[in-house]
C-alpha cells in the first residue's frame, strides 16, 4: 500500500499544488515520485465533491433538481472522461515528441483535480452561509478554484512532455479533437459489433425455428 499511497506520495502531490513547475518536472524525471493510484483516487474524490456540490449546496445558489442528480452515473462519467483525456493526450503527444509516458499524463491530470475538489467542497460549505446578494462570493471562489486547476493541468502537461507553453496549448486543443475522434470510433465500433451480434442472433433464431 505504501508503494502507492505512502507519505512521500502525498507530500509530492501536495507539492504539485504549491510548486507545479518543479514538482511535475520531478515526477517525470525521478522514479517513483508520483503515484497513478493516488491520481485515480483524486479523480474519484473530485467526482464525489462535484456531486456533493450539486446536491448539498444551499438552495440560494443551487438551481439543480436534486432528483436529476445520479452520483454513480456522474462517477462513471468522470472516470471515463479522465481515461479518454489521458489516452487522447498520450496519443497526440506521442506524435508530437512529447517525453511523457501515459503514467505521467495520468498523474498530471489526476493531481490537478485536487484544487478543484477542494474548492468545490469549500464553496459548498460557504454557500450554506450566504444570501441572495452575496452569490458573487460563491461564484468567485468557484472560478478561482477551477481556473487554478486548469492552469495546473496545463503546467503539468507542459512539464511532463517538456513542451513550451504554445506547444502545450496546441496539444491540448488537439487532445480534444482526438477525444472526439475516439468517441466517434467507439460509437462506430459498438454499432458495427451490434450488427454482427444481430446477424449471429438471427442465424440462431432461424436455426431454432427450422426444426
Amino acid at each position, binding site marked *: 500500500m505504501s508503494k502507492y499511497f505512502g507519505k512521500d506520495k502525498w507530500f509530492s502531490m501536495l507539492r504539485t499544488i504549491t510548486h507545479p513547475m518543479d514538482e511535475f518536472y520531478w515526477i517525470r524525471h525521478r522514479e517513483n515520485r508520483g503515484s497513478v493510484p493516488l491520481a485515480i483516487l483524486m479523480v474519484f474524490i473530485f467526482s464525489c465533491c462535484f456531486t456533493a456540490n450539486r446536491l448539498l449546496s444551499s*438552495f*440560494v445558489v443551487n438551481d439543480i*433538481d436534486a432528483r436529476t442528480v445520479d452520483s454513480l452515473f456522474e462517477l462513471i462519467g468522470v472516470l471515463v472522461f479522465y481515461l479518454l483525456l489521458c489516452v487522447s493526450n498520450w496519443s497526440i503527444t506521442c506524435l508530437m515528441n512529447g517525453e511523457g509516458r501515459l503514467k505521467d499524463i495520468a498523474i498530471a491530470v489526476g493531481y490537478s483535480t485536487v484544487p478543484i475538489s477542494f474548492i468545490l467542497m469549500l464553496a459548498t460549505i460557504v454557500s450554506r*452561509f450566504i*444570501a*441572495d*446578494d452575496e452569490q458573487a462570493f460563491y461564484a468567485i471562489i468557484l472560478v478561482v478554484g477551477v481556473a487554478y486547476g486548469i492552469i495546473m493541468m496545463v503546467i503539468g502537461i507542459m512539464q511532463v512532455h517538456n513542451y513550451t507553453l504554445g506547444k502545450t496549448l496546441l496539444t491540448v486543443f488537439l487532445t480534444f479533437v482526438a477525444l472526439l475522434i475516439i468517441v466517434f470510433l467507439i460509437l462506430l465500433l459498438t454499432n458495427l459489433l451490434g450488427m454482427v451480434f444481430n446477424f449471429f442472433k438471427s442465424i440462431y433464431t432461424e436455426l431454432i425455428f427450422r426444426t
Partner: protein
Amino acid sequence: MKLKSVLTKVTALAAAAVVGIGAFSLPVLAEGNVPYTTYNYNYWGDIVYTPAAYEPDKVVTGGNLIYNGESIGNFITPQDICVSDAGLIYLADTGNNRIVVMDGNMSSVINIIDSFDNEGVTDTFNQPYGVAVSESDQIYIADSQNNRVVVLNQDGSLARIVSNPVSESLEDGYVFVPLKVTVDYADRIYCIAQNMFEGIMVFETNGQFAGFFGTISVDITLWEKFWRKLATKEERAKSQLFIPTEFTGIDIDPDGFVYASNIDANGIQGVRRLNPRGQDVIKKGTNDNLGGDLQIAGSTDYAGPSQFTDVVYRENGIYSCLDKKRGRIFTYDHEGNLLYIFGGLGTQMGTFKVPSSIESVGGDLIVLDSSNATVTYFNETEYGRLINQAVSLRYDGDEEQAVELWKQVLLLDENNELANTGIGKAYLTAGDYVQAMKYLKIGMARDYYSLAYKRYRNNILTENADVYMTVIIVAVVGLYVWSKVKKKVKKSGKEVK
C-alpha cells in the same frame, strides 16, 4: 351446527356492514368525478397532478330553452358569449343570425334579438360572430358578414352602427370583417377583425376608427436574418412571410386594461394584457410562460403548443384562457402564476369538441362549444374555491388572512408551490424565519427564502455576539501570551546551553 351457521351469518353481516360503511364514509375524490385530468406544472416544468379545481355542472343546449312558449331551437355554430354587469348572458348564435339573451343560469330566455329598426327599415344580422355589453348596458354586435359593428340599446333600438373604417394605414379595398368585440368604460370599441394582423382595431365613442392597438411584433431570429441575407430575390419571394399572429379573443377588466388571447406558435405567450397605450404589461410568472401547456413535445395532432382561443378576466387579477388544441382551461393570477388546469377534449359532460368562448358568471365558468353548440357550466370545487379566495386576498394585500386558506390548500395538495410560498411569506413577516425558510424552500421562492435566511443569520449573530467576541478575544490574547512564553522558553533554553 346451528349455532355455527348463525355465527357465520352474523360475521358475514358484520363484515358486509363494515365494508358498506367504509365505502360510504370514504370521501369521494374530486378527480374521480371529472372526465379530464387535472394537473399543474411545478417549478421544474414537471406535471404535478392536483385535485380538480372545477367540475362540470350542467350542459345547456338551445333546444332545451323555451321562449314565448316554444323551444328556441338548437344553436348553430355559436361563436361568442358575453356576461353583462347585470348578470345576463348574451350568446352570439352565429349560424341562426341572432343574439340570445338569457339569465345567469341559462334556465330562461329573456330576449332574442334577430332584427332591429335601422332608420325605418327592418335590418337583420349576417353571421354575428361576437357580442359585448358595455357598462351602460348597450349591446355591441360584431355583424361579421355585414361588415359592421351594430350597437343596440337595451330596448332593441339602434344606437349607432360602426362600419367602413377609414384610415391611411388601411389598404385600399380593405373589407372590414369584425369577429370579436369588446368595449371599455368610455364606450371605446376594441375589435378583432379577420385577416388584420396589425392588431386590435380601436374605434372612438363616435365610431371613428382611431387606430391599431397592441400590435404583436414579429421576432425574427438572427439565424433567419442570416439566411434571408444569403437568399436570392426569387428564394425570398417564395419563402414564407413573417406575419404576426392574430388575436383570437378579447376581454376587458374594470380598469380598462384589455386582455387579448393569441395563438403563439412557440407556446410561450398566448395572452396579453394591454394598457391604454396598447403596450403589453402582463406578468409572466416564475416559468416565464403564459402559453398554456409546458410539455408539448411530440409529432402527433395532439402535441404542440396550446392555442388560446379566448380569455376571460374574472376578478382580483385572475384570468382564464381557453385552449382550443386540447380543450383545457388555464387559469393564471395577476403575477402570471398558473393556478390550475382543467377541461379536455371528448364527448363526456365537461369536455369539448371545438371550444370557442369562455366567460365567468357568478362563481361559475361557462364555456361555449361551437361544434356541439352547447354551453357547459363549471362549478368551483373546494380546492378551486380555496385557491381563488387565497389569491384574491393576496391581490388585495391581505396575505395574513390568506394563510389559513393556503393551509387548507396544503391539506388537499401538499406540494402546491403557491400555498407554500404564501405560508412562508406570512411566517417571514411574523418573524419565524426557520418556518419561513422551510415553506419557502418547498415553494421554490428563492428570493424570499434568501431574505428569511439573511434575517435568521443576523438573529443568530446578534444573539450570540458575546460568545463570539469572547472566543475571539481569548484566542488573540492566548496566541499573544503563547508566543511570548515560547520566546522566553527558547531564550532560557539558549542560556542554559
